[in-house]
């Protein structure tokens, strides 16, 4: 099967998944989502007012009609306005994506680079004391909860030492990148480095077990050259696969980081919109994320097969 047929087949497969996601979100919200009318009614809400609000929001219509409206919204990518603020949902999402990416993209880049470099270095000295010590440090670092890291880092670097602002977000992209992003980015890289390092180390080691490495060594090529030229190239495949699978997560970001550092991002928006029972926003975020996830998976699969000629399209 050639490339374009593969892509088309996968795109076709996305439709039932998307429908499944829509159905799941709809069922979840109507079953377990709190009734937004009570929150919007204010302190003194009588039944007449509650009924009016529900009518205005459109939730008193039959489920089939609401589901059909949802379907049309997905096709036109127009989810209307937020129930609590009246803001256009597309505006909400667009304004939130920027801050999340400003944090997550540097995190991904830095973390991949550092993890790969460290993985190569540790594999270079595999079995030695350095290797074991680094691995144990990684394990210990991974055992501490993210929450603890946030609390301690914010207190230490923001409050005690004053190197970074404790929280906040500005308007200008550059200001954010240089002033407000560094502490959360550093924190996130620190936390995600350990698991990535362990994973990439296993990729590299697995590569180094292959026969061609033994052949190269036998031919007298230096260990460094082997690592940097051959092993890295081949280990890059699973590493990049791993990076690709992390791409959808970029957009949701980490809501913990966003809450503690007051970053107006998408992760925080998800939790807040669930608390407010703001269904239009929840719908939009879920649908967009689902599409992004599926596209990212497709991209990774295509790249994987394109890079590794041994694998054929099925």
């Amino acid at each position, binding site marked *: 099967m050639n490339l374009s047929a593969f892509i088309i087949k996968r795109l076709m497969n996305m439709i039932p998944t998307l429908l*499944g*996601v829509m159905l799941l979100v709809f069922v979840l919200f109507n079953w377990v989502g709190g009734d937004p009318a009570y929150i919007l009614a204010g302190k003194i809400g009588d039944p007449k007012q509650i009924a009016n609000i529900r009518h205005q929001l459109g939730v008193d219509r039959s489920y089939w009609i609401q589901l059909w409206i949802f379907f049309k919204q997905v096709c036109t990518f127009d989810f209307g306005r937020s129930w609590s603020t009246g803001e256009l949902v597309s505006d909400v999402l667009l304004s939130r994506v920027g801050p999340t990416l400003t944090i997550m993209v540097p995190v991904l880049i830095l973390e991949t680079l550092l993890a790969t470099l460290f993985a190569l270095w540790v594999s270079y000295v595999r079995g030695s004391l350095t290797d074991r010590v680094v691995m144990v440090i990684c*394990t210990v670092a991974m055992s501490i909860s993210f*929450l*603890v890291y946030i609390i*301690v880092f914010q207190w230490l670097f923001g409050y005690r030492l004053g190197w970074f602002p404790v929280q906040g977000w500005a308007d200008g992209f550059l200001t954010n990148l240089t002033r407000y992003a560094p502490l959360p980015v550093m924190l996130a890289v620190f936390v995600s480095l350990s698991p990535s390092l362990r994973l990439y180390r296993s990729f590299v080691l697995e590569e180094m077990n292959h026969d061609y490495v033994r052949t190269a060594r036998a031919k007298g090529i230096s260990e460094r050259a082997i690592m940097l030229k051959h092993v890295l190239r081949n280990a890059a495949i699973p590493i990049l696969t791993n990076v690709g699978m992390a791409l959808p997560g970029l957009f949701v970001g980490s809501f913990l980081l966003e809450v503690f550092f007051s970053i107006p991002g998408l992760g925080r928006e*998800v939790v807040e919109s669930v608390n407010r029972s703001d269904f239009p926003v929840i719908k939009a975020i879920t649908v967009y994320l689902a599409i992004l996830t599926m596209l990212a998976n497709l991209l990774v699969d295509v790249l994987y097969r394109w890079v590794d000629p041994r694998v054929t399209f099925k």
Partner: protein
Amino acid sequence: MTHATDSAGPWALAWRRFKQDRVALVSLCITAFFLLVMFASYAGLLARNWSAEVAPSYTAPTLQKVTPLANTHEQVGLPQTFTDPPVDISDIDPLTPHYQEWQQLTAQVAKAQAAQATHLFFGADKWGRDVLAKVIKGSEVSMTVGIVAALLSVMIGAVLGALAGYFGGVIDACMEWLYNVLTSLPSILLILAVAAVFSRGFMTIILILGLTGWTGVYRLLRAEYLQHRERTYVRAAEALGASHASRMFRHILPNVSHVLLVQFSMNVVGFIKAEVILSFLGLGVPVDMVSWGTMLAETQEELVIGKWWQLLAAGGSMAILVTAISLFADAVRDALDPKLNE
């Protein structure tokens, strides 16, 4: 070196390799110690009175014994002075006919027991409760949640993965669809949804974690079953008349159990950590129980005012246990699959 005639199974061989790794043995001991403490706490031998207020609020760790302050009618809150006597409601009170009896009984009610002095090696929390006792009691919840939720997730993932990988076809397509739908949603959304269905409670956390954490196991098991169902030993079993169920669970399962074990331990670690986040979000155990997660959620406001001991106790215990389990799981995996070690 094993004898050529020694036909010990893969598990016995693995155990032998495992024994040689000192780090692995140490981590096994630490894990066993924590489990022991957890059972002792469950049986009521330790930390039975963890919720008793034994000291003034936020007492620092100390080697000497501490007593709670004699809590008499000390002035709390802002100073208030009144020019009138307290309001009398006896003319409208439905309880007025019983005033006399009430007063007499009040005078007879027994006085509180004498306050005991206790050691506070890890200081006291906001309410004056012994942090060490809380850590021990909290291990019960955190470890049980981790273990049971991991068990649940592994069981769900294994069954679904086995079905998908073994039968293939329509069943596999349906599973794949379900898997795609669930993994396309942001996990936080699923967590909040499951939390909303069930009321707050101990079982709820286990359900939340178990029902949202099975996808990794599913993926692996499916791949394994896809591989194994073509193997000769399975074909042979089929020829001998073994049923589907028998082939799936009596024949293939033992051969993939090492994958399950590793996944199980990874999930235990992941879920113990996830419980902290859930507690922070308010989806943790109810208020009359304590877990490492609820303790760490409290430390958020404590660090800035210089109270570091609860963070150290809960964070430290969790770090030690999780590290031990991780190292132990690594060692088990290495012992079972020696090729990776060379």
